[in-house]
């Protein structure tokens, strides 16, 4: 018997209603299944519904139709097995960087000293040692993103949901972070759903890349198994022929989709 | 043998001349002499002090006798046991500019009458007065002014034509020539003229229950008050001034003295109630408050002279 998928979004439809304005169906009949230990990237044109999908997986949004199951159990309310790195800023502004990283551990009842020790290790890992005493507004955009990364990963969640975690980082820092993430993931196979606009990043990290169609009524229009060997170094793997082949293939699908979406809006 | 040494007295506006005997008793230490430990709480108005006693947070009211009758109609039984003021000390004055046109109470028709509060004693006196001229309460418009400096301001600014108030406000107005007094109950004669009989005013009263349970305490209170009343009969104005707390005089010593001289005959000489006084009060109240039905009131229950008589026996002899 096969293990239940870590995350199963099945036939999800999301329709937003807002007062006065008409309803808006962002996602129609989308299905996304993530196996335990699988690293799935989701790419798609801006505004298609990637964050919405992740919100549903985290249990923050209830789909209008469709079912969400986590390790086989139907999801009711918050997804307690997941960690979520938000696209927008979500640090607690009244806590310093260090305290933002410890907070999840504190919620779990860990002693403060233990939490601080772990958090300091994480700040080092994300390259923010010595910045722990700063409040979020005293950090740069990229620093805040990294604090949020440490905040989520320190809890070692079963399912990691990440919404454009590295887009505010310079390429070098980004690659360092990507390698950290891969190391963490491979040490102790988590399930990861990773949203990005950078196709190279998606391919170099993932087991599978899912391409969403342009909104409204977005749905997955392509799934690509990435059969590159592991362990990978994100910088080096980009130069392999198989990578370039996959890149070209996925690129074609995406390009059409984006242009379609853009045209659609232009002629609306 | 005193049942309750700590007695809590409630009073509405202690510093007013109306309650001078209470202040004198307290200042001369007569309560202490009787073995009592009296605490006096002051309230913003007579009804408030009564409510405090009904609610059980104070024991004895120092207030207007008429309330015992009012309360009987609410099936709450009070009894007055010593009288401090034999007249209500309320006067009615008309503003100088209208004084020339005033001949008799019926000339007040349609005028604005300032009272301390609608429904209060000052309102009642005004109603009683206009009734003499054949007017109904609806023939005047009653304005509540409170008892503070608003009264003076209201007259100054011409917002009322007639005022029915206690002292010292009336004295201040009169002295400034702002008003002309047209009726007064500051003296026994004036009271007799207005009400057609004596009108008991400030007194100590307490729930019947309290008096029954604590006769010796009540006796002690009565003794102290009667002693003060007797002292006041003898006292010179200067002695009064020396006794009253400094704070009461800080406003204006001369004015205080002047006002005191205006009302000094209003204080009871011996603390005794008269049957005639009780009847007058009932008549006055019944004409004003429809809830009070004269035939259902048991007047005898509303006051007692028993304690005063004993007190007079003790202190009256010193005369």
């Amino acid at each position, binding site marked *: 018997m096969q293990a239940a998928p870590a995350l199963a979004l099945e036939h999800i*439809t*999301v*329709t*937003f*209603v*807002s*007062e*006065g304005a008409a*309803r808006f169906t962002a996602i129609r009949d989308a299905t996304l299944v993530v196996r335990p230990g699988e690293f799935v990237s989701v790419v798609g044109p801006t505004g298609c519904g990637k964050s919405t999908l992740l919100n549903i997986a985290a249990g923050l*949004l*209830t*789909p*209008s*139709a469709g079912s969400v199951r986590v390790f086989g159990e139907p999801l009711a309310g918050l997804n307690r097995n997941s960690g979520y790195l938000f696209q927008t800023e979500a640090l607690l502004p009244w806590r310093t960087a260090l305290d933002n990283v410890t907070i999840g551990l504190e919620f779990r009842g860990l002693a403060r000293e233990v939490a601080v020790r772990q958090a300091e290790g994480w700040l080092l890992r994300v390259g923010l040692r010595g910045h722990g005493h700063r409040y979020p*507004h005293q950090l740069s955009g990229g620093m805040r993103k990294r604090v949020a990364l440490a905040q989520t990963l320190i809890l070692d969640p079963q399912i990691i949901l990440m919404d454009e975690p590295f887009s505010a980082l310079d390429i070098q820092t980004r690659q360092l972070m990507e390698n950290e993430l891969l190391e963490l993931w491979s040490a102790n196979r988590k399930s990861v759903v990773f949203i990005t606009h950078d196709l190279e990043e998606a391919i170099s990290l993932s087991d599978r890349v899912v391409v969403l169609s342009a909104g409204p009524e977005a749905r997955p229009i392509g799934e690509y198994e990435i059969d590159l060997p592991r362990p990978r170094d994100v910088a080096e793997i980009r130069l392999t022929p198989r990578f370039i082949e996959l890149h070209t293939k996925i690129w074609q699908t995406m390009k059409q989709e984006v242009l379609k979406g853009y045209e659609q809006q232009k002629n609306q | 043998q005193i049942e309750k040494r700590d007695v809590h007295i409630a009073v509405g506006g202690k510093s007013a001349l109306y309650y001078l005997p209470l202040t004198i008793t307290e200042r001369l230490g007569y309560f202490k002499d009787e073995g009592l430990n009296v605490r006096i709480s002051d309230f913003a108005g007579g*009804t408030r002090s*009564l*409510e405090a006693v*009904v*609610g*059980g947070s104070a024991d004895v009211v120092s207030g207007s006798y008429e309330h015992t009758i*009012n*309360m009987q109609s*609410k*099936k*709450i039984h009070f009894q007055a046991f010593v009288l401090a003021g034999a007249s209500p000390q309320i006067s009615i004055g008309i503003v100088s500019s209208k004084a020339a046109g005033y001949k008799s109470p019926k000339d007040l028709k349609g005028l*604005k009458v300032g009272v301390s*509060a*609608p*429904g*209060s004693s000052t*309102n009642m006196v005004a109603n009683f007065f206009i009734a003499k001229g054949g007017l109904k309460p609806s023939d005047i*418009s*009653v*304005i*509540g*002014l*409170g008892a*503070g*400096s*608003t009264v003076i*301001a*209201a007259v100054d*600014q011409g*917002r009322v034509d007639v005022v029915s108030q206690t002292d010292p406000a009336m004295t201040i107005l009169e002295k400034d020539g702002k008003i002309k007094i047209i009726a007064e109950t500051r003296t026994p004669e004036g009271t007799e003229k207005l009400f057609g009989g004596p009108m008991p005013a400030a007194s100590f009263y307490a729930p019947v*229950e309290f008096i029954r349970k604590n006769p010796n305490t009540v006796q002690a209170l009565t003794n102290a008050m009667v002693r003060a009343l007797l002292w006041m009969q003898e006292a010179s104005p200067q002695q009064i001034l020396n006794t009253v707390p400094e704070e009461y005089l800080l406003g204006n010593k001369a004015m205080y003295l002047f006002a005191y001289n205006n009302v000094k005959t209003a204080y009871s000489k011996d603390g005794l109630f008269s049957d005639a006084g009780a009847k007058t009060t009932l008549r006055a109240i019944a004409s004003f*408050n429809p*809830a009070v039905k004269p035939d259902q009131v048991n007047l005898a229950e509303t006051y007692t002279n028993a304690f005063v008589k004993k007190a007079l026996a003790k202190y009256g002899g010193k005369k």
Partner: protein
Amino acid sequence: MNSRRTSRHLRLWQVLIVAGLFTIWHVTTHPTLLPPLYFDNPNKAAFFFGQPLEVLSRVWIWFSSGSIYEHLWVTLLETVLAFAIGTVSGLVVGLWLALSPTAAALFDPYIKAVNSMPRVILAPIFGVWFGLGMASKVALGVTLVFFIVFFNVYQGVREVSHTVLANARVLGASERQLLRHVYVPSAMSWVFASLHNSVGLAFVGAVVGEYLGSSRGVGYLILQAEGTFDINSVFAGILVLTAFALVLDGIVTLAERRLMLWQPRSGETERI
């Protein structure tokens, strides 16, 4: 559908609670229904708390005879004026001080001092300045409403997001435009929080003002009733005022709904 059912349920519960309160009120104040709980004399409860049936009949008589309208009109007018003047002045002064740090530092202690003055005691001075008519009641109400709105606007403006503010300034907003397009909308939820509080206090100001000296108004009726220990009329007056306070608050809530449409709300997805 669903939400409408919930809201009907809610109304039902609210009515039940009111009915329950009235029942408790009735049985505890009706002399013979229960052994006296709190007071030794069974009539005392009725003396302090009135009796609901009496109170309601008093209300009924007032409205059916029409005698209340004149008083009610006066009180409502005073309340609405106090509310309007207090709100506008609180808003203006709050905005001014929040935007001018020097003025704020300068006047801050005075504002706080005035706020801590017991207005009821100063009522005679209001009488001197504003007479015994409506003006003095409105003034009393204004002193209550003003400070509530002021403190909230003052804080609300200072809570404006730094980035949004910087953005608007870079986009070329003049001070005036910043006020209209950034400070005021951003402080709106602060203002509404204070308005819900102010509605009640505007009523309190008007009634207490009348209570301290007047010739008309619901406060006058209450004072008159107190003089004759007619507690039922006192409660009848309070009941009538409360009903109108809820109506006024409803209007504020409607305005709030309309102006705060932009805020994110939970449950924005349609359920099928």
